[in-house]
């Protein structure tokens, strides 16, 4: 499963992309965030305020309770500031 990070998340974590292999217990994006945070202090800190982290699953913007089964790419990013 490919993970993408954007904007200040990317800068803080010092990477825009990584590949991870979460266990079967990771059912939703929220589970994935917990699991990533457990294994990485920087991620734990960056994910502290959960509702400030937006997500996309296979290029569709989704909520944290979305199942991750069979997902190829999960993106994490701060609230969008376009225009």
């Amino acid at each position, binding site marked *: 499963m490919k993970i993408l990070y954007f*904007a200040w998340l990317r800068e803080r974590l010092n990477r825009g992309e990584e590949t991870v292999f979460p266990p079967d217990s990771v059912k939703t994006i929220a589970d994935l965030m917990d699991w990533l945070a457990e294994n990485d202090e920087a991620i734990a800190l960056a994910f502290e305020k959960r509702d400030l982290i937006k997500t996309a699953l296979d290029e569709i*913007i989704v909520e944290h309770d979305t199942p991750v089964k069979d997902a190829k790419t999960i993106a994490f990013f701060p609230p*969008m500031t*376009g*225009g």
Partner: protein
Amino acid sequence: MSIIVRLQSEIFDPGTETNAFLKANSKAGAAVTFTGLVRSEPKNPITSLTLEHYPPVAQAQLEDFAQKAITRFDLLKATIIHRYGKMLPGEPIVQVMTLAPHRRAAFEGAEFIMDFLKTGAPFWKKETGKNGEVWVAAECRDDDARKRWE
């Protein structure tokens, strides 16, 4: 094709884009062009603005917003041009153009697209100024602006 969405790092010329958009459509009575510019206020001057984006999702979201505006306001066409990368004060960041038989639809369509684009398409702004680089925080009023169309 009634929808055009263009993501590009190159600067664009607002007037040239407007004229290309206005090309003959005899049912059209009203065209609205919104141009968003890199702002540098005297009390908080910036030297540049850098936009990061998530290309496939940004493209898909903007196409979706343009399509929704066309359906909802019965527009004849809609074009969105959005830049990414580094840009300087005074330069255009984004241009949204709508064409309709009457003015109310053209105005509402352009405002609708801008309100969704601000908080619904994956772009992130970073300002470079005397305090170094600062990521621009999302604004509540932009969320509110989007909600008024619900």
